[in-house]
């Protein structure tokens, strides 16, 4: 089955390698450049000296280097890659067999279809996990200098760090797999799988973007001009801790009422969003396995 799976999916494997190579080259270049800029701007010394409190201007100028399209192609690509590649790999797995009638060949050999599917699912999803984890590793490294002075709790970094990219990939794979079984058509399965994946993707993006759901509220004393200048966009954040995601700042006398997501909520949010993707994937794949078994009765 290992050879069979490889032979039937090698075109997708090469496509994934090409995507990986592109992201790896782009990511490594970005990481090297970000590190040199980080040092050139004197951020290490500033952060060591003041813990970020006095580095606002430096951080802002460091960040402005990345605003002019230098990262945009990569981050846009990373937005669609999990859905796109997951659908491209998952759609044909059953869709092509049913579309071309080769299922009659594949499932009448001595290996029962349940074992055939289990072997394929195991091998292909392992490849997807390795691919997703590698992209995540490269991008986490590349984005390291930006993460040191910014917020990881929202896209783009939230989408390609932690487990969310790999889980999103598996989610699109599972949905396209199921679509292939239902539609009996390869292209249709890819398209349907991709658009079905948009649903959990949009939910995940909303949860980590506009609908921040793990906020905490604190009251922070302030004085004079500092009170007036305080906003959600203050650098460093009004909570005084780089990485916190401030969602609202309301002035009340000599106090600021601040709602924010603490930086250490990164992993709980990753597990929540990643878990949502995985749950969708498990339901889709489970349904496909069940339907495939039921077709014989």
């Amino acid at each position, binding site marked *: *089955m290992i*050879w*069979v799976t490889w*032979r*039937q999916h090698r075109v997708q494997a090469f496509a994934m390698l090409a995507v990986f190579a592109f992201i790896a080259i782009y990511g490594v270049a970005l990481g090297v450049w970000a590190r040199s800029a980080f040092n050139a701007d004197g951020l290490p010394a500033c952060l060591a000296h003041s813990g970020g409190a006095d580095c606002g201007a430096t951080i802002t100028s460091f960040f402005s280097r990345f605003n002019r399209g230098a990262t945009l192609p990569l981050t846009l690509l990373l937005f669609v890659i999990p859905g796109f590649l997951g659908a491209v790999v998952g759609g044909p797995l059953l869709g092509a067999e049913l579309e*071309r*009638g*080769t*299922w*009659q*060949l*594949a*499932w*009448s*050999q*001595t*290996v*029962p*279809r*349940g074992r*055939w599917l289990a072997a394929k699912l195991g091998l292909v999803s392992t490849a997807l996990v390795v691919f997703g984890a590698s992209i995540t590793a490269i991008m986490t490294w590349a984005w390291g200098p930006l993460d040191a002075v910014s917020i990881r709790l929202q896209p783009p970094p939230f989408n390609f760090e932690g487990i969310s990219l790999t889980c999103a990939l598996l989610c699109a794979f599972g949905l396209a797999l199921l679509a292939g079984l239902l539609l009996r058509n390869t292209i249709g399965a890819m398209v349907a799988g991709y658009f079905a994946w948009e649903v959990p993707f949009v939910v995940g993006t909303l949860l980590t973007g506009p609908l921040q759901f793990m906020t905490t509220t604190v009251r922070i004393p302030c004085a004079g001009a500092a009170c007036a200048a305080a906003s959600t966009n203050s650098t460093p954040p009004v909570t005084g801790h780089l990485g916190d995601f401030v969602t609202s700042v309301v002035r009340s006398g000599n106090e600021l009422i601040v709602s924010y997501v603490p930086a250490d909520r990164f992993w709980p949010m990753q597990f929540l969003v990643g878990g949502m993707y995985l749950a969708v994937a498990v339901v889709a794949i489970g349904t496909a396995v069940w339907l495939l*078994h039921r077709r*014989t*009765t």
Partner: protein
Amino acid sequence: MTHQSSVPALAAEGLGKRYGHAWGLRDCTFSVPAGSIVGLVGPNGAGKTTLLALTVGLLAPTEGEISVFGSPSRANTADTLARVSYLAQDHPLYRGFTVADMFRFGRSLNPSWDSGLAEARMASLGIPLRAKVKALSGGQQAQVALTMALAKRAPVLALDEPVASLDPLARLDFMRDVVAASAETGLTVIMASHVIAELERLCDWLLVVAGGRLQLTGAVDDLLAGHAVLTVPRRTPDGDVPGSTIDRTDSERHSTLLVAANPEQVAVAASQPGWAAEPAGFEQLVLGYLRRPPVTMAMAGQARTAGTAVAS
């Protein structure tokens, strides 16, 4: 591969398959001896592919069972899948694969795969192993698919309309190879086909299905001996004719009837003035049963006993 002749290669008992509310196949009971070449005939949608899929283990029966060499077929089990090779309609293959890839696929998925047989057949047919499947002619693709089925080394080979898409020469070559494989290894072949002339030439056992029910089964020689074509005066009622009337054509001057009856009865009847009898031909027999409205289980039982009673 040898099997005890007492164990039938294929035996169905009350076999039925329902799709939703409609029965694709029902009340199928038959038994086929090892080494037979079985012709499976019926109109489109009659249940031929269903019967084959049940035999192969691609489908599970709703009721009854079909056994291959004494063991009931269980859908999706390695045991059942190993016992029957299946060549589906339009001989599906992976178009992007080379012939060698197809064989490696076969070897990976079948413990009893016979690489020597597969390669020898390709060499004798002049099909290069490195050729892509999509670059081969229809006849060559069918031969590759047949080779896959033969190299699986299962004792039963099920073919669904194997030559429907082939030109006459490719048909001849293909069927010659099926018969040769059966003769060499004692392979039992069950073949669905619309080409009655082809079946007449090749088959020694017949299964006629229509409307999801088995209309006729038996050894071809016995069936032919158990039927006759009678020419009788017009408007002779069925009741006056020996045996049971399967098919009837009334022309202006006389009626022609296909009857299931033993030869003695037929000979007696034919001695009446204005009556004549001749042996039933294969095609007349098949068409007669196909034309007859689908019969119930009880009537099918009668038809079967009519066939077998004469044979004994």
